[in-house]
């Protein structure tokens, strides 16, 4: 897994997965959307503890390769300021048969969201902002 400060190009990422022995590619793109828990979002920023995020991401990908009969898997997470519709995270999994590609792709994104040290700060229309999951906890 990589952490990227530049916008993700899903076309190039998808192409990087081409493999003549693979029959299936499943990809996930996480996009910046305009509402979170009812609050209107205008922009957000992701901040990563990059060295650990990349190590933890590689562990997740190795786990997926051991659990599921896939050919390849990759993941990239964007950091920095993002706008509506930007890709925050991309995951791609190739395999011979499609079922395992769906399972592995979902496994990888679920684990990335749970385990990799990457944080999101949302900026709202009303001027407020906050780190998701970190506010009002003591």
């Amino acid at each position: 897994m990589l952490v990227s400060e530049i916008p993700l190009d899903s076309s190039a990422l998808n192409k990087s997965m081409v493999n003549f022995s693979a029959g299936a590619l499943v990809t996930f793109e996480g996009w910046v959307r305009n509402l979170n828990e009812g609050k209107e979002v205008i922009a957000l920023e992701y901040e990563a503890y990059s060295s650990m995020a990349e190590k933890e991401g590689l562990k997740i990908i190795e786990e997926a390769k051991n659990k599921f009969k896939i050919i390849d898997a990759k993941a990239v997470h964007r950091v920095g300021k993002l706008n509506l519709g930007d890709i925050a995270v991309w995951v791609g999994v190739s395999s011979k048969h499609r079922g395992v590609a769906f399972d592995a792709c979902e496994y990888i994104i679920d684990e990335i969201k749970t385990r990799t040290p990457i944080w999101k700060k949302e900026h709202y229309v009303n001027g407020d902002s906050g780190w998701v999951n970190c506010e009002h906890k003591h």
Partner: protein
Amino acid sequence: MKNITILYFAKLREEANKRDELLKTEANTAIEVFNFLKEKYNFSLSEDYLRVAINDEFAEWDDKITDNDILVFIQPVAGG
């Protein structure tokens, strides 16, 4: 006396108002370091709500720290 490095991210970075610091400490465990810094910066997040990483790996709060360790207090991640 140990020399350790603390890296701050996200909300704790804002509360500490710094990205990193070198600390000379007699603390033996990660939780001792955290308690000292929580009081110093008045962090809004308690250890129940955080995890600690030592040298890029998740660790336990009562793990021993050694000279030149890099500590990070890991807030709940973006999730969702």
